[in-house]
């Protein structure tokens, strides 16, 4: 039973450093926290043959994706003793060098945040229906595949 509507994790376009900085700032009032761990996914300018990726265009099966993000949140809170957790993912165009994924976990002590963060990131990569189209400088494209 899905008893509450999951939050929207998606952000239009790149996730800015101001957004990330601000998110860190908001945690200063939570004085039981001793350790934060943040993962940022950044779009790489990969070279394929002679062409270079200039951006990734993200689409998603949004309803299912938000539900999966919600499920991952619940599972992570059950597994790890975290104070809080935030996940944001881009939709639309994110240029090479820009941030497309922002995962933020916090806890009183450090040991737990390392395992929790890796768990969340791997779960997202494996189970959330998000699709990245790598756009080359000449506007041709290929479909990204997670490894």
């Amino acid at each position, binding site marked *: 039973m899905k008893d509450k509507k999951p939050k929207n994790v998606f952000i239009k376009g790149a996730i800015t450093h101001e957004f990330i900085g601000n998110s860190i700032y908001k945690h200063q009032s939570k004085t039981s926290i001793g350790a934060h761990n943040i993962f940022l*996914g950044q779009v790489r300018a990969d070279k394929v043959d002679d062409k270079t990726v200039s951006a990734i265009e*993200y*689409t*998603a*099966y949004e*309803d*299912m*994706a938000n*539900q999966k993000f919600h499920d991952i949140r619940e599972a992570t809170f059950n597994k790890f003793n975290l104070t809080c957790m935030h996940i944001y*993912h881009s939709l639309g165009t994110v240029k090479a060098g820009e941030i*497309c*994924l922002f995962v933020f976990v916090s806890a009183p002590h450090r040991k737990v945040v390392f395992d929790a963060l890796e768990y969340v*990131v791997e779960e*997202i*990569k*494996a*189970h*959330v*229906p*998000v*699709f*990245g*189209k790598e756009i080359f400088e000449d506007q041709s494209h290929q*479909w*990204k*595949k*997670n490894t």
Partner: protein
Amino acid sequence: MEITIKYFGQIAEETNTTEETIRIENGNISNILTLLLKKYDGLKYKDFQVAQNQEIVSPETEITGAEIALLPPFSGG
């Protein structure tokens, strides 16, 4: 019954549409796949999973849902 089929990423590129409605008798997901592979020949070369009501299902799963989605490999993050 009437079912909405959603296509994403390179699957939508192949079908040239992101959503359509089909009519089908009761049966398994494989019945829907047979129908779609007939309609979109190129799909047979594509790697995808099927979601029914936002849960990944196998071809043997009974059709229960009003929403089926064809999902290419995930590449979030």
